[in-house]
């Protein structure tokens, strides 16, 4: 009795070459996937310059003249140190509207933001333009060696009544 007849394999593709191409395909796919995932993994290590420390010493209180806004620490730490008759406070250089960096205009005695024109008094209180709230203040105190010590980890917001906190102001009288 003749066995069941199978259709003949189409010409040109043998079983061996089919398996070979299948393996090549899968290997290629796996390699591409691996390379792609490695590239994604690279994104977990972004090209950042790490921030300067959040706490820093800002010289001795005697270096600060009353009524002056000190811009020495603006570039590196993003902080203005302002000395009034009673003491020193540290203002954040981030505009409370959309986060640009305002400029201190000594002639006008105000901080003025170049992006949308918000203006702040030397105290940090907003008085013109769209900024909805005053600039934030950072924690300020004296280090053991007598230098001014600023800690950016703690913020004090005027509208929350936090400027009454003793850490937001360095009393020097």
């Amino acid at each position, binding site marked *: 009795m003749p066995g069941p007849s199978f259709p003949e394999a189409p010409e040109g593709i043998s079983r061996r070459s089919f398996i070979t191409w299948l393996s090549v395909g899968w290997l290629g796919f796996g390699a591409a996937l691996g390379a792609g995932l490695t590239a994604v993994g690279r994104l977990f290590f972004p090209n950042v310059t790490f921030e300067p420390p959040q706490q820093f010493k800002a010289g001795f209180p005697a270096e600060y003249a009353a009524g002056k806004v000190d811009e020495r620490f*603006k570039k590196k730490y993003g902080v203005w140190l302002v000395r009034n008759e009673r003491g020193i406070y540290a203002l954040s250089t981030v505009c409370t509207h959309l986060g640009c*960096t305002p*400029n201190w*205009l000594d002639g006008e005695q105000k901080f003025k933001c170049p*992006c949308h024109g918000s203006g702040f008094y030397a105290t940090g209180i907003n008085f*013109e*333009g*769209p900024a*909805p709230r005053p600039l934030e203040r950072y924690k300020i105190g004296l280090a053991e060696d007598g230098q001014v010590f600023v800690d950016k980890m703690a913020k004090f917001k005027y509208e929350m009544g936090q400027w009454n906190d003793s850490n937001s102001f360095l009393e020097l009288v």
Partner: protein
Amino acid sequence: MSFITDFINFLCRPAILFTLSCVAFYLVLFPFREKFAKKSALYTILVSMAVFILVSMLNPTFRDVVTKADNVPIVLMLFLLAFFCWLPLNKAVKNDKLIAEGKDVENKQEAKELVFTWPDLIFSEFICAIIVWSALLIWAITIRAPLEEPANPVETPNPSKAPWYFLGLQEMLVYFDPWLAGVVFPTLIVVGLIVLPYIDVNPKGNGYYCFKERKFAITTYLFGFLILWIVLIVLGTFLRGPNWNFYGPYEVWDLHKLEALRNVNLSEYIFRYAGLNGGKLPDFWLFRELVGIVLVIGYMVAGPILLAKTVMKGFLEKMGKPRFYIMVTILLLMASLPIKMILRWTINLKYIVAIPEYFFNI
């Protein structure tokens, strides 16, 4: 000479420029529409724009602003804009006349004289592509890319300007809280444009230009585009200088220009200046901002109902309730932008509702 420049500087103050643009908008679209649709009007406008800019370039400030690498294409685009506003107006006026005479509109007459895609269309497209390509090449070779120093988070350029197509948004940000001007309004613009074909079911004007058959739709759209977008871009590009102050076109960009911009919240007007509650702001925000909240809710809720009963009664009948109320809501939100801008320019109003405790300001 200085009299003329001072006068033009004066005309370019925001409140005056805005009012003048609105008046010009009305004059062009309504009483003088047919005059403006003539070819001679287009030539007059283009030539006078060119003459104005060329003569003004004698002034060093104006020259600096206009020839700044970022601004050159914007200046050129103003000419394009004038042309592309004139072209449909010209066709619309012609068609309005034909319709009034009971004839077919221009398109239908043209449709009888068909032309072939190849070579007629493809050939003119090819010529256009070559012209655009060479213009881009010349632009790329002659005007240097306006690159600045590497970005630095603690040093913001002064003035700091968005790309030209966002300057309208940046101008809006001066008058509104970021979440409104930066998030809600742009979303509404997009949503409003998407919704347009569903609210505007007037079949007239399909496939041809006309004005008289869709006065309201065309006027509203053009007001939003020309006045609330283009005028704001022009303001932001040419008239905003250091510290985001306004400078007239011939005014020197003085870094120390002092402008009194003491902005006042509505609650401060009510309590501090009118002396309610002994001149003291109430501590609790709800009492403090009650008037503002009532005003805003009244505007958005009572506004549509009032309009439906009075001026826009006909629209309600024609469109049906759902369409009408969606349209009126979007219309009122759009109108809130010029309203707030005018309040800022006239009475220095900062926020109608100001609740910084919850980052909520309107």
